[in-house]
């Protein structure tokens, strides 16, 4: 397991002085019954950063987010969120955090406007009426404001939920798979908004399954079976894993995949569209295996830098050995 929790320091201007951290928790552990869902989790999120949370389903991402905003009490561990103790000051944290749940959790039997108005009232937003009108306008939902939220399509629900959790201008956004099931255009717009907010100093912790979204994050943490496998600046993750990758294209990929899976030095073979990505940590053995198989065939091969995807597939296969 690679543990590089001090890596945010690489990001020259940021430092780990607690004042500059929006989230700073250590040893966070959550046990449901006999199952340890989150195990000794450390998380340091610099203020204003976009922090990506990756990991397979059921890896403990949602539980961690809930512990950070005080919705779940950790069994062990301590730390702060926006300077407030996650164990004892959850009321203060709630007032300053915008939390978007994985499942749509606004009231389907309230209209769009009523939902926004309710949220604004609960957070005691100043100039509430104006703020709600503005939000509706930005969403482009002014004309549909009296439509029941339950009748919105999936993508619109996500956008409404995002707007609702930002209505009180939170200092920290906790977004739990906010773009699951959302079309690419809406996703792009969504990420534009997140970048704008980041420029304004808003911190975002976002969980996602999409690699193209992970790349947009300043930092990434990969978790599986409740344990953190790696974290660091998103552009350095692949490098940290120490993985080398060859890209093979041409006819007969199926056969190539079958053969290479058992070849020396090959740790994983993954199909990406019309190409095969063959990765492993033993650079020489890997190169030899690839060349040996491809020479004398029509297949083209080239070495390329390992991407996040390869890195995470690799981490996952290791995780199974370690934790299952």
């Amino acid at each position, binding site marked *: 397991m690679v543990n590089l929790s001090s890596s945010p320091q690489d990001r020259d201007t940021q430092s780990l002085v607690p004042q500059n951290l929006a989230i700073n928790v250590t040893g966070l552990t959550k046990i449901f019954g006999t199952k340890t869902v989150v195990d000794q989790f450390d998380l340091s999120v610099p203020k204003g950063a976009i922090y990506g949370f990756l990991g397979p389903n059921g890896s403990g991402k949602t539980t961690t987010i809930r512990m950070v905003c005080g919705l779940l009490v950790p069994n062990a561990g301590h730390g702060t969120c926006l300077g407030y103790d996650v164990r004892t000051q959850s*009321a*203060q944290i*709630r007032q300053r955090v915008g939390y978007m749940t994985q*499942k749509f959790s606004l009231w389907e039997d*309230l209209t769009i406007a009523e939902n926004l108005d309710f949220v604004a*009232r609960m957070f*005691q937003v100043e100039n509430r009426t104006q703020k709600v009108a503005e939000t509706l306008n930005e969403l482009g939902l002014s004309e549909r404001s009296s439509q029941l939220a339950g009748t919105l399509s999936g993508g619109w629900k996500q956008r409404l939920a995002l707007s609702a959790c930002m209505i009180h201008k939170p200092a920290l956004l906790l977004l739990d798979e906010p773009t699951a099931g959302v079309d690419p255009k809406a996703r792009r717009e969504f990420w534009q908004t997140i970048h704008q907010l980041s420029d304004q100093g808003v911190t975002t912790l976002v969980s996602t399954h999409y690699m193209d979204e992970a790349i947009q994050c300043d930092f990434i943490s990969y978790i599986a079976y409740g344990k953190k496998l790696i974290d660091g600046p998103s552009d350095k993750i692949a490098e940290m894993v120490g993985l080398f990758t060859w890209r093979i294209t041409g006819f007969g990929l199926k056969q190539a995949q079958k053969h290479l899976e058992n070849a020396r030095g090959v740790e994983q073979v993954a199909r990406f569209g019309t190409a095969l990505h063959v990765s492993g940590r033993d650079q020489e053995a890997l190169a030899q295996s690839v060349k040996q198989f491809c020479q004398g065939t029509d297949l083209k091969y080239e070495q390329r830098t390992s991407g996040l995807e390869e890195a995470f597939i690799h981490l996952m296969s290791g995780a199974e050995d370690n934790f299952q």
Partner: protein
Amino acid sequence: MKGHNFSLARLVAILRKEFIQMRRDRMTFAMMVLFPVLQLVIFGFAINTDPKHLPTALLDRDNSAISRSLIRSLEVSNYLDIRYLPKSEQEAERLMAAGKINFIIQIPENLAADIGANRPAQVLIIAEATDPSAASGALAFIEPIINTGIRRELSGALSFAASRPSLVQVVVHRRYNPAGITSYNIVPGLLGIILSMTMTLMTAVALTRETERGTMENLLAMPARPLEVMSGKILPYVLVGYVQTIVVMIAARSVFDIPMNGSISLFFIVTTLYIFVNLTIGFVFSTIARSQMQAMQMTFFLLLPQILLSGFMFPFRGMPGWAQIIGEALPATHYIRLMRGIMLKGAEASDLWADIWPLGLMVLLVSALALQRYRRTLD
């Protein structure tokens, strides 16, 4: 929790939300109006029982060997328990208004003399007839018991009288419900059952619905205090309770001709207490139940004893001791007594204090439990 106190603005926000949701929920509306009407129609009939040991006050003006024998035979009969020996009729009437006794037996001062002189003799029995089944069962047995008791004492010079088939005529006066109409008894009690059922169910479902739909997570992520959430969830249904009460009252008057002999304001004060007890019980249920289905099951689990052990269906004093103890712990028991007291007897707060304070205490205890149980986390 500094700087995070109870906020009226947040309470208003929750109240607004609940009202909007209630307005859009046809089920709530149906329950509010149709349920009481349906129940009133269904429960138009009473169930007869044969209660024993009914508390009785006795005024013995004669104090003769014959009257004492009469009293002894009543005591061994098991139908009546002579618990009070009031000095005056007024005192006896007060005991009845307060619900402490079911019967007053008055023995006239010249009972023995009348029997000896072969004059028609009478014993007066005043029966509390709000629950006609309780009264009539016992009344049917009283006359023969009294006659047997007196006959035992007739010897020597009086033995000639013993051969007469009926020595004493028992005069019965029914109080509060002179015609012995069962709906008089059923309808005020039914209000207690209807309110218990709908009020508990509505709040029991109110929180579990949020949990089931996943909106609870959103609500919990907001800076709301438990008291705000609880008040916001409970207060709208107080109004629903009033609507139901008024529906039942209108039906009681127009369909069943039930009188309202007591004070309307006392009626509403007591009803408000009762509504709060049931709403807070429902809120406690919703902190335990994981689904709306479970919340509903819990409501029915409570409803059954409220119907069976509260004196609504069977005369309270006809129940075995352990059942009476459970009955005393149920809010419906006290409320039904209060309703019968206020509507039929015209009793006042001072007469009914014994049943008012338990309701008040229940409101406090259950509210405290509800607040303590309300989780601010998803744990």
